[in-house]
């Protein structure tokens, strides 16, 4: 008996149909579980185990391998500051410390209100626009320590329903790795990547 909403169950069925073997759907289903609860609970992993016909221990072995499956509650906004080599060379550490200081949240932790989590991360592929920061995996390039502080204040005051990469880049970013050119409408509504495999147009239309 699934604890998931009917819409999520339908999405789970569609995702599984995109793979030759059920077990291959474990990673996308783990993101579905996170989207249901905001983090990956034990119950979420048990549910994924049922869908994929594997044991909860096997699901945990996968979930624990990857950094993006958060098995403890994280804030509504997960701020990830890159401090890998290219960002470090251009002051990424300073941005991290400014974000930690402004938010009062050290790396790997969440504020008491459950609003903001902060982490430093390894390379997020924005080296030409270093230093880079992501909020719920939506990217901002060319961030300064001062803009990092403004970002924290903005998230706390404006409390955007969805974080949009273009909007944040406009407000808090500067130099980009390349011309983004095409405006992005979508964004993230929680501390997990805003992407669910949709199957195909065909299967969507049939659904």
């Amino acid at each position, binding site marked *: 008996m699934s604890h998931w909403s009917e819409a999520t169950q339908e999405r789970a069925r569609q995702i599984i149909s*995109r793979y*030759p*073997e059920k*077990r*291959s*759907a474990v*990673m*996308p289903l783990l993101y579905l579980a996170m989207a249901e609860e905001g983090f990956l609970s034990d119950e979420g992993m048990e549910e994924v185990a049922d869908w994929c016909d*594997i044991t909860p221990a096997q699901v945990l072995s*996968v979930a*624990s*391998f*990857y*950094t*993006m499956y958060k098995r403890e509650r994280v804030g509504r906004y997960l701020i*990830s500051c890159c*401090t890998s*080599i*290219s960002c*470090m*060379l*251009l*002051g990424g*550490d*300073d941005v991290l*410390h*400014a974000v*930690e200081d402004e938010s009062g949240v*050290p*790396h790997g*932790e969440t504020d008491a209100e459950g609003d903001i989590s902060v982490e*430093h*991360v*390894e*390379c997020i*592929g*924005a*080296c*030409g*626009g*270093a230093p880079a920061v992501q909020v719920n*995996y939506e990217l901002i390039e060319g961030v*300064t*320590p001062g803009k990092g502080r403004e970002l924290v204040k903005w998230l706390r005051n404006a409390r955007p329903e969805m974080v949009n*990469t273009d909007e944040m880049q406009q407000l808090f970013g500067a130099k980009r*790795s*390349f011309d*983004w*050119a*095409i405006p*992005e409408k*979508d964004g*993230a509504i929680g501390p997990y*990547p805003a*992407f669910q*495999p*949709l199957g*195909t147009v*065909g299967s*969507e239309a049939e659904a």
Partner: protein
Amino acid sequence: MTTLLITKRMSEHPADSHTIERYEATGGYTQAKRALGLTRDELVEEVKASGLLGRGGAAFSAGLKWSFLAPARPAYLIINADESEPGTFKDRQLLERDPHQMVEGIIITAVANEVHHAFIYVRGEYPKPARRVQQAIDEAYARGYLGNGIFGSDYDLELTVHLGGGAYICGEETALINSLEGLRGEPRLKPPYFPAAKGLYMMPTIVNNVETVSNLAHILAMGANQYSGLTDSADTGTFMMSLSGHVNKPGNYELPHGITWRDLIYDVGGGIREGKNLKTWIPGGASAPWFIPEHHIDLEITKDATAAAGSMLGSGAVIVMDEDTCMVRAAERIVRFFSHESCGQCTPCREGTTWMEMILRRIENGEGRTVDLDLLVDVSDGISVDLAWPPKMTTICPLGPSAVSPIIALRDYFRDEVQEHVTRGGCWLPGAVKSGGATPQTPQTPQTLRSLQTESAGTDGRSSEEVTPDLHRAGGDK
């Protein structure tokens, strides 16, 4: 002369290069259609003759890789879009700005290798590129270019986007395959040596990089001869380079093979910021041994010339460091990456990278010992015998030996700077920390193994008791 191939459309039509309308208006999908009328042998031979090398890092002949495909069926195709090598951001641009070019390359590769189900493994931190790719795939399905009977033929092809979970090691092709099977992303023991023999679900599998397949429509359109004649260099075609660090004009550049490093850094990259001097650069992503101006600035940028000088072009990521950069800090940051991303299967890598990171940090923080550089070399030797290039492996995959590259640079080029850290009691260089803002904190010098381990995967600047205990979760539970 620079011929733009894979970045041409996005350069000329920035506003809509990602749409199927623009793609088709600029000749798109004609080569995929044509491929359906060619035999496997014709396609494999054409790609072999083009000289196209894999652009993911290993620079292996794409056509040769295809020719290894074992006869068992079903066969699978996986596009490696798990771009995570520090310094690399070229695939992100190709995915966001010209996804159909990749999809057409996927169709050509699938047809050449009798594949009916292909996957694109996009790194988890790239949700926007993944959305763009999914949109392109949906458009292609809607027009009958994917799905049942593509382009009105009797050929079926399904294409699935799979999002990673934040693990660099999944860029290693057997780890990627495990990950796609729903397992931990740990590299597989070899043999079998090639996924082309036994890959996804132990069936024959081709794993190609985004940039590699993005070239295919161009190769078919102009023919292998013209493609391989684009440069005078031994390496054919163009090459995406991601330029970052202390250059005036960082970014992705599609370049002909055979220009020199001087051309790249001073002409293409606009030279070093604030007119400073070049100290060192990494020629092919964090895994590559470093180059210095005294020895390497006039070398040609080709696979063989770079290999002969003891490094590699790898993923095409060039990280430039100016004279103010602290070599210990830069080495620490790269070793930290590999320590964090080690999957933990092999002891030399798991333990070695962790200890190297701790030793580098203590040198940087003024607790270094005069023997520390030799100790680093000794630990490195345990991971990559003799610190040879290419590495003599002690591990299942090349991740561990990659972590040794900065140590080779410290040993060969920057020994004095390391020793000065020891005698001066820490770092005196302005390096990365002069951009203002909060004063970078330095970790307390750990006194015990327990606190050392806590520091190693914890924050850059917090005392150990503030750090959550499950530190080795980072790249996986070690």
